[in-house]
């Protein structure tokens, strides 16, 4: 319990300034069918299962309390996403910061593997799940600014626009097509520019925004 409140405290500190809207829109999580297939909206597509060095349970960390999760905000671990073009993977010391304190799970196989990496001071070779082509530059920071900080949408929903409902997965899997047409279809939509005004705007449609 002590550990749990520590985590909550950490989260509160991290999320200060992020105004979490209570309702998560389910539209963001529409999933595709078999690999390469497309749903009726023409875009969602399921990627292959990616085997990671540790089968990281996103659902346990970020899932809803009702489903046994801790509702940790995506940005708590993927902290670089709001500061950089790439979201990055949390540094190992961040995982250890919490897990050193959680005695109850220290003997679980996944945590033992995690601690062994730390003992060796070895970075975990996580595999990329959403690896865009080299000629495309996606900027996490700008999207997070727009949807989370300006519009006040919850991270789970805003991240979910592209990544699906990761909070319900164990290791992440691609569930969106992430093709150019798919990106453009969202950029063409009118989005509210912030949480309070009714003014809307759409994403840029210049080639160089992503290809530069």
């Amino acid at each position, binding site marked *: 319990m002590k550990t749990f409140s520590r985590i909550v405290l950490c989260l509160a500190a991290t999320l200060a300034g992020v105004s979490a809207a209570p309702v998560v829109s389910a539209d963001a999580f529409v999933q595709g069918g078999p690999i390469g297939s497309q749903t009726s909206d023409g875009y969602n597509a399921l990627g292959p299962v*990616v085997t990671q060095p540790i089968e990281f349970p996103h659902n346990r960390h970020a899932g809803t309390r009702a489903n046994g999760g801790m509702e940790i905000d995506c940005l708590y671990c993927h902290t670089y996403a709001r*500061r950089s073009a*790439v979201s990055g*993977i949390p*540094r*190992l010391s961040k995982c250890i910061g919490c897990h050193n304190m959680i005695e109850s799970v220290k003997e679980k196989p996944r945590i033992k593997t995690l601690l062994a990496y730390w003992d060796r001071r070895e970075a*975990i070779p996580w595999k*990329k799940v959403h*690896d865009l082509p*080299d000629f495309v530059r996606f900027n996490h920071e700008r999207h997070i600014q727009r949807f989370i900080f300006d519009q006040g949408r919850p991270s789970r929903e805003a991240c979910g626009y592209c990544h699906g409902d990761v909070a319900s997965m164990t290791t992440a899997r691609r569930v969106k097509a992430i093709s150019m047409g798919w990106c453009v279809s969202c950029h063409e939509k009118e989005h509210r520019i912030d949480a309070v005004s009714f003014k809307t705007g759409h994403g840029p449609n210049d080639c160089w925004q992503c290809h530069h």
Partner: protein
Amino acid sequence: MIRFGMTANSVASGVNRRDFLNLVGLGGTASVLAGCGNTSIESGVELVQSYVQPETFVVPGVGVYYASTCTQCGSACGIMGKVREGRILKLEGNPQSAISGGKICGLGQAGIQGHYSPDRLKTPMLKENGVLKATTWEKAMSLLSGTVSFTAQGPRRVVLTGPTSGHLQILLKAMPQSGAATDHVVYDSLSTAVAASVNLKMFGVEQTVGLIDKAGLVLSFGNDFLGAGDSPVAAARQYARFRKAERRGILIQIEPKMTLTGANADRWVVIAPGTEGVLALGLVRELLQRKEFANNLSPNLIAAVEPYNQTEVSHITGVRGDLIPRIAATLWEHSPSLVLAGRYPQGHAHGSHNMAAIALLNVVLQNQGKTLWREAELPFPQMAPALGNFKSLRQLNTQMAAGDVGSMLIYGTNPVYSTPDFMRFADNLQKVPFKAAWVTELDETAMHCDLVLPLMSPLEDFGTHVAAAQSDGMEISIQQPLMEKLHPEARSFGDSLLELLKQAKPESYKSFPDYYAYLKSAVVNAKPAFDPKVEDEEFWENTLSAGVLRRPAALLPLPAIEFSADLVRQPLRESRDAAYPFVLIPAVRPSMRDGKAANLSWLQESPDPLTTVVWDSWAEIHPSTAKQLQVNEGDVLVIKSAQGSIRAKAYLIPGIHPGSVAVPIGQGHESYGRYATNVGVNPFKILDPIFDEETGELALYATRVAIMKTDQNERFTKDEGATNLQQGRKLVATLAADQVDLAKETPFVIR
């Protein structure tokens, strides 16, 4: 956004530069080695950049800048390397370096390519039955420490390097203690040893400091200070101030083939190769017509310049007679002036006399103490640069031929490529029983060695450098790794030297586990000269963060030295050999220099500033010569000297003396990675054995050649369109220069 690495915070966090590199190591190396080029979204193929415990300022996707030093040429510009996800991505200038002033040149920018080159040597190689085969460092080191046993085969055991400075130079000087070498020879195929010797005789120092921005007029005899000069980045900054001054500075460039600097000049004057000294004496004679200048010379010198009247000078140099008094008048009117001399006048049998005659102009014009100074002494003279020359290599070559050299360790120079064929250097190298080379890529010299060792790239290594041409004070430039080693077996040359010294003198060197530890201790020992108040560790971290150790140093006046009139004596007019009517100009390109940069494809791809040709060699000839020889652009010419011949396509350019043909240096490698090999030709090879009479330096611009046209014509790969700029139509109205009254047309007056 520029972020400077190694802040005080990083010290406090207990993670030093090395730990940082280790921490980012896994992800960094993995992502470097992973393939790139996916064209649609991928899952589960590449690794994410993953950190253990990075510095707080490390954010994936955001670059962090670390200071280091460019080693692409001897200028030692301070650089900042943008590091992201453990990879070095881009080099910029370090604003804290007075030499680079926050900028770098194209050659410096391309340094990153040598680091990522696909042809980097990855393991030590040992020659067995004439073929280089992979070996281990253990075996290599045991062979190196055994070089002492080669004494019986030849008393001289040599370390042959290119120009060096800083702490590497200190270790090289100590090498005789190791027994692995008896002496250190420094070779530079583009050496300025002639200028240094003349400066010493006339101004008491080898290196003078010319302040371009303090001059109203710069008269440059073939000094390509904006292109392939001693410190082009620093010079370009001075030049900008010179041009922007309230009274805009004027540049007159006199040379047999246009350089980049010449192309920027207000007035470009073509001159017959090797006659620069004659023109200089002609100008001195003109200046002496004014009383105020006559007092500056001894009667002997006045008598020595007397024969150089306008007609005679014009006849010898090919410079229009009326220009001589006009240039002299401009020199006087735009005082203070600065007279510079570059490579062209040095490269002749009478190179020293040429240079002395040009330097005499500075004396007559009393530029000492106004635009011409000397540096204060470096506080650590043992770190001073060893600039190298040709003469020592020539002596070494003679000893090699006689079988007097037992072993040779080679670093930072490629003499098999850059020496003329008449020296038979490659053949003589075979007479040396044991030779080892440290290289990043297998070059021509390495191919002739018994042992070849993989060298860290300059972006992976530590080092200290002191440039011969300083700018605004004295600067020790600090080199630190911008990235973890790409190839695990690559080692620093400093580490190899230290290990050899440690084996021979364990008591002196045992406290240094590696070259890094040696450098750190040496730099920290220098603390009292720079920042005595801080703790050692903080001093070291601050030094790495800044990338330079600087001392403000006032420039000192040049001493007045009596010199004999004999110094400026010019040769009698030489008779031309009818079989070889042209003079060969092996042109030094700003991007290729002595050929060391030919393995960098960016530089191969960047157009030559004057011809815009890429990935090739060419022969520049004057259109009038072309007409006489019935040569068109692209015609393949055979350029033949008494020593051999090369083939190159003709490029017609008005910026060359009609009696010359220029072929750029740098191409024609037989080995040096995929980008350098089999591109163009190497003009070094056909040079005649002509040497400066005073210093023994190779006369680079004195070879005479014949030009023969073949029946082949090939298209150039070049950026410019048709050289006939008017494209057969009168697009822009033009007027010949001689028909223009320059007094009306230009912002300055040459009357």
